[in-house]
């Protein structure tokens, strides 16, 4: 579809330029291409600069970082793998890092699975059925998006303490499992699907739950991919709420743990910088695999708000 439009577009342009001077148009276009592509090249260089600087710094001792800043010089004589060797050395300090890593992994995987399942069914209810509370629930989902989390933070903190969920993974996870944006996305995706699919299933004698799981879930699979990556990113990088809920160092996630390396009594930059770079790796891999779904996931709310 898009291709045909582009082709038409191109042909109209060609006929236009044929009327004027074909050569002049072409030169103009290639100058435009040069500047537009150049702009993105410059932007991209600016964007990757801090990360590349961080990566190079992770091959130098932490002391260097203070003394010389984030130097981007590729001076191999001062670069070595010591920081990474240290991380993988199995020393108690380094093991602490891997514990955070494991905690983050566990938290992220559990959060993603539970969030997707719960949000799918909620969205399924409001987009596939007609029932009394349907409209009300939809409005409530929208309403929850309108209040920033930071306002609910303190009462939630008290509540989590009262529920004895403080300092536990569940305390971090439970308040966010019914993510309104995820429900909204699934709803946007499903509302255009034909309801006849349900009736067909019913005629075959399948019950409502069987239809929701075995018939509809496979159809909605792309939506699951889109939400999985966004949800994983959110959970992996979440900081404020875990900072409040976790208390014991053995439960820390990566974000909280890395933050503890920055203390007023001398920072452990060796581990911080190498650990930070390692922390990006899992989410970067996910991003590269699921990249094409991200745009769908992000923009469901934006195009038809």
């Amino acid at each position, binding site marked *: 579809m898009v291709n045909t439009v582009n082709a038409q577009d191109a042909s109209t342009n060609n006929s236009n330029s044929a009327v004027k001077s074909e050569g002049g148009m072409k030169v103009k276009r290639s100058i435009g291409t040069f500047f537009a592509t150049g702009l993105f090249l410059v932007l991209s260089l600016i964007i990757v600069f801090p990360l590349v600087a961080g990566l190079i710094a992770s091959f130098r001792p932490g002391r260097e970082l203070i003394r010389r800043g984030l130097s981007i010089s590729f001076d191999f004589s001062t670069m070595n793998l010591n920081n990474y060797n240290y991380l993988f050395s199995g020393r108690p300090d380094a093991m602490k890092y891997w514990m955070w890593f494991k905690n983050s992994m566990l938290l992220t995987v559990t959060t993603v699975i539970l969030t997707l399942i719960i949000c799918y069914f909620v969205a399924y209810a409001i987009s596939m059925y007609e029932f009394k509370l349907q409209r009300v629930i939809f409005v409530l989902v929208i309403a929850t998006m309108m209040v*920033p989390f930071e306002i609910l933070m303190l009462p939630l903190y008290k509540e989590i303490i009262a529920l004895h969920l403080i300092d536990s993974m569940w305390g971090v996870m439970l308040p966010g499992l019914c993510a309104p944006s995820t429900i909204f996305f699934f709803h946007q995706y499903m509302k255009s699907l034909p309801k006849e699919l349900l009736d067909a299933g019913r005629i075959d004698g399948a019950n409502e739950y069987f239809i929701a799981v075995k018939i509809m879930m496979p159809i909605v699979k792309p939506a699951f991919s889109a939400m999985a990556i966004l949800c994983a990113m959110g959970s992996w990088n979440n900081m404020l709420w875990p900072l409040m809920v976790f208390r014991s160092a053995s439960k820390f996630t990566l974000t909280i743990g*890395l933050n503890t390396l920055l203390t007023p009594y001398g920072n452990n930059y060796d581990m911080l910088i190498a650990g930070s770079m390692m922390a990006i790796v899992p989410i970067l891999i996910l991003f590269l695999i699921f990249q094409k779904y991200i745009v769908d996931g992000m923009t469901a709310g934006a195009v038809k708000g």
Partner: protein
Amino acid sequence: MKVKKFLCSEKTAPYVFALPFLISFVIFWIYPLISAIIMSFQDIGAVSTKFIGAKNYLKLLKDGVFHIAVLNSFEYMLLTCVLLIPFPLLYAVLMDSRLVKAKGVWKAVLYIPALTSVVISGTLFRLMFSEYKTGQLNILMTMLNMPTIKWLKVKWTSEIALLLLCCWRWTGVNMLYFLSGLKSIDKSLYESADIDGATTWQKFKFITIPLIKPTSIYVLTITIYAGLSMFLESFMLWSGNSSPNNIGLTIVGYLYKRGIEKNDMGYACAVGVVLMVIGLTINFIQLFFNGTLKKEED
């Protein structure tokens, strides 16, 4: 058998599906929201809690530090709106045109900062904006023959650091939002405009801008909310919740300081309620001027 039949009926099933949301809504949204409002009228001590009327709010009116926090958050919000709406829109328009080559690469690279957590990006930016002459920004100053600057100790230079960090992280994301808005515009509109001899600027003004309005409103809304409730960026840049002369203090930073660090929950909740009122007010004004309130939500 009867129970099973009831649970499996077409009438009951949607309620069963929606039940987790309703439970979560009551426990983790309505309850804390109402408690926040109630707590803001209380003095919450370690042993006893008592109602003190609007005293917390009256205290906020006279609290100079809170005023600094509100001004900081406001300023940050306005500036992020100025930086994170027009530029990403421009990039998206270029990206949508046939002028740019290797689009996939640029889209991916511009999105990468959004993958990093604030701890990592904040630390990297703190090092780049270090006051020593080894910080990247000071190296740049030296190259330009200008004196080095203590970036994070002065209000306006630290604002630059915060804004750059924010732009670094969100430009790509907002660009993708706009790009998806642009993709939904019917291309034949541009063709007929071409036939009528419209200039590029006219096409942008009379076709692109009106038709991506839903996207713009969405992006504007999230930018306003994110700007007003910014906290971790400043928390990481100053490596903790205190900055010289409170130049990096935000509303949420003050809420955190009062509620968690000083354990004055009642007062902190009043801060939160003020934040909510400001957020909702700005958003309603914005939606009113954009004319979305007249339309149906759906």
